[in-house]
């Protein structure tokens, strides 16, 4: 790495860097700033010449309980999904990182994270087919169990949680696995030779050492779940109204963009707060 000294280096640096960062500025940073501006408007300037400034979009948050209630509902959904992702995913990462070795481990790890990198909409759609009334799951259970099954899972909160856990589970497994496999085998062997039980090793050694990775995974699940709208729409039906779906409505159905901008910005503030609070954890997880 070189310190910038020659003007020629400076020019080269700017040439290499500016296209990417100008693009990001145009497509991400300016829009996010513009959203804050629009959230204080009565109307869109391109629609109404008599637009003005107002606090109403934010005040409506306090006036009607709807938005606050839905934000709370979305946050609770985030907690539930994160909880199940950890409950299911951490043991899985533990098995992958600590008991399986060699090529098998590599292949299994790839199998676990592969769905995560594939199309999330299609995966949610696949759950709609599995869960629908008289669908594959119910018929499958009927074939095995002697009594009639009516799960009625489709269009319930359970369906939304199942779909979201399916979508984000690999995140927790990925970050926990990376933290767990970085733990030196010698430490574990030392603990075992001094008589520590498997449970003690897990509780006093593996869990604390992999906690940053686990928490990083939790944040990476929680944040997008709070902002989800497609999953509740498809799997939740009547019960699928969340904070995200209300924002979606403002932009594609109700066309109240300033209110949508205000709602989006409140969500952004919540997200940034969570990311900000967890930055020390995320930083530790990366090293």
């Amino acid at each position, binding site marked *: 790495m070189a310190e910038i000294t020659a003007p020629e280096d400076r020019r080269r640096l700017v040439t290499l860097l500016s*296209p990417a960062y100008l693009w990001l500025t145009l497509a991400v940073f*300016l829009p996010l700033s513009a959203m804050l501006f629009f959230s204080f408007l009565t109307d869109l300037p391109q629609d109404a010449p008599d637009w003005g400034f107002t606090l109403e979009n934010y005040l409506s948050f306090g006036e009607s309980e709807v938005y606050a209630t839905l934000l709370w509902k979305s946050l609770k959904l985030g907690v539930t999904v994160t909880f199940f992702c950890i409950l299911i995913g951490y043991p899985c990462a533990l098995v992958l990182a600590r008991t399986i070795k060699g090529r098998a481990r590599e292949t299994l790890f790839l199998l676990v994270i592969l769905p995560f990198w594939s199309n*999330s909409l299609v995966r949610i759609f696949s759950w709609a087919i599995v869960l629908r009334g008289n669908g594959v799951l119910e018929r499958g259970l009927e074939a095995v169990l002697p009594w009639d099954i009516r799960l009625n899972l489709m269009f319930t909160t359970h369906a939304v949680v199942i779909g979201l856990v*399916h979508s984000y589970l690999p995140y927790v497994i990925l970050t926990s696995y990376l933290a767990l496999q970085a733990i030196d085998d010698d430490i574990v062997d030392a603990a075992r030779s001094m008589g520590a039980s498997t449970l003690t090793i897990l509780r006093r050694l593996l869990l604390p050492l992999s906690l940053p990775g686990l928490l990083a995974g939790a944040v990476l699940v929680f944040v997008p779940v709070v902002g989800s709208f497609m999953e509740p729409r498809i799997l939740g039906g009547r019960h699928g109204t969340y904070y995200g779906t209300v924002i979606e409505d403002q932009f594609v159905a109700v066309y109240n963009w300033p209110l949508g901008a205000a709602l989006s910005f409140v969500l952004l503030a919540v*997200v940034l707060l969570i990311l900000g609070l967890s930055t020390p954890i995320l930083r530790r997880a990366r090293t």
Partner: protein
Amino acid sequence: MRRPLLPLLGRAWLALILVFLYAPILVMAAMSFNASPFYQLPFEFSTRWYADMAMNPQIIEASLRSVGIALATMVIATALGTAASIALFRYDFPGKRVLQVLLFPPIAIPWLITGTAMLIFFFAIGIGRGTPAVLIGHVALALPYVIVTVSARLSSFDVTLEEAARALGADAWTVLRRVTLPWIAPGIVAGALFAFAVSFDQFVVSYFLAEPGDSTLPVLIYTAIRKGFTPEINAISTIIITVSMGIMFLATRKSSFGGSR
């Protein structure tokens, strides 16, 4: 007696997780070959939904648009991202940390927020909705992935190789072309595959930015699902997930995300 039991339980758990992850996808794929339009069992093999899909001009058009946008995203994001990675790797300058941190908002902020913000902003500056807007958005989302992937590969690059080439009389351009680029090529390929996948699988941002008349494939599928879905959608979805898993398989093989060691 206790020792072999625990790993056995662990393996069973892992197997269950794999079933949970893959079963719905396999069910969807199976149903795309089922003759009944209402997903009725018993299963009866048929390829009629694939034939229907191939005859559906909307699906074909959206597929071509999606692939086109993904290819364009891949080319632009890979070029800009590789250039930025090289600059971030080679030079030390004030504000470098900030530039690196700025890569995370596009990844970490929910796409719902980014997408709606883009929609508002693009309308305000006159770009509006449509394929150009979608492309601008996709490239921005793909750029951080390319930069992170290429940078990861660069971090294993030995700078003395460049210095050696310089000492032997190569100019800056030759060093880049003959020394640096060949070394980071696997990283660039992985980054390009990531960029393609980010765009090809992107739903949320496309949903807000695509013109209702000319949507991308995921947007078309979402609209179709909400109207009441048909096995035709299963067929195209099965193709999409096969393509996107295939690409990601290649990308993880090329990059260090495969969890080697």
